[in-house]
């Protein structure tokens, strides 16, 4: 597709439940990034992929967060045992060029609310 497609737009989970977010990058883009926007404005880098390989995962909370980008499937970000502080908007971005995030296009985000 011509835009980064994120599903669902909204997700509500009870504390302790699992949450799974999806991202379909722009066709032909090799790089995928996940960002978490908390407190409305603060963006935090989570993880980046080059094709199906993790490129940089230094921003990922290792205990409960995991992500995958498998061939011929949307990328996914999964949160096991969600906590209240996981409530945020999660943005996915994709990039074609070797400049990676400098040429990234962002999706519209998934708003996760943990209650």
């Amino acid at each position, binding site marked *: 597709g011509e835009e980064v497609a994120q599903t669902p737009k909204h997700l509500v989970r009870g504390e302790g439940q699992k949450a799974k977010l999806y991202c379909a990058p722009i066709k032909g883009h090799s790089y995928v990034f996940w960002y978490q926007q908390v407190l409305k*404005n603060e963006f935090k880098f989570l993880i980046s992929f080059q094709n199906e390989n993790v490129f940089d995962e230094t921003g990922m909370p290792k205990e409960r967060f995991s992500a995958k980008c498998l061939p011929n499937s949307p990328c996914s970000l999964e949160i096991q045992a969600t906590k209240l502080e996981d409530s945020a908007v999660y943005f996915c971005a994709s990039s074609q060029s070797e400049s990676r995030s400098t040429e990234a296009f962002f999706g519209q985000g998934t708003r996760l609310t943990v209650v």
Partner: protein
Amino acid sequence: AQSVTQPDIHITVSEGASLELRCNYSYGATPYLFWYVQSPGQGLQLLLKYFSGDTLVQGIKGFEAEFKRSQSSFNLRKPSVHWSDAAEYFCAVAAPYNTDKLIFGTGTRLQVFP
């Protein structure tokens, strides 16, 4: 560590007035610099970027930004604001050797009065 500061949390201007949004960065060398706009409920849209060369950068929607190395600033400007420009604006940087991560400022909310 790299950081981005947007000193103005909220700015209000009248339609047709000029606009300048401030952005200062902290980094040992010149990073790549960006401005993004986020409309309510929407994702981020890239307005413009600076990598090197001419320090005055033109972007979409009539925006421009000027890189000033001596001030470590990358301020966004528009000569005449339209009501549709009301949104949240984010300045961001990326290290030239590690462009996987964008470091964002905390944003400036722009409100436009008719």
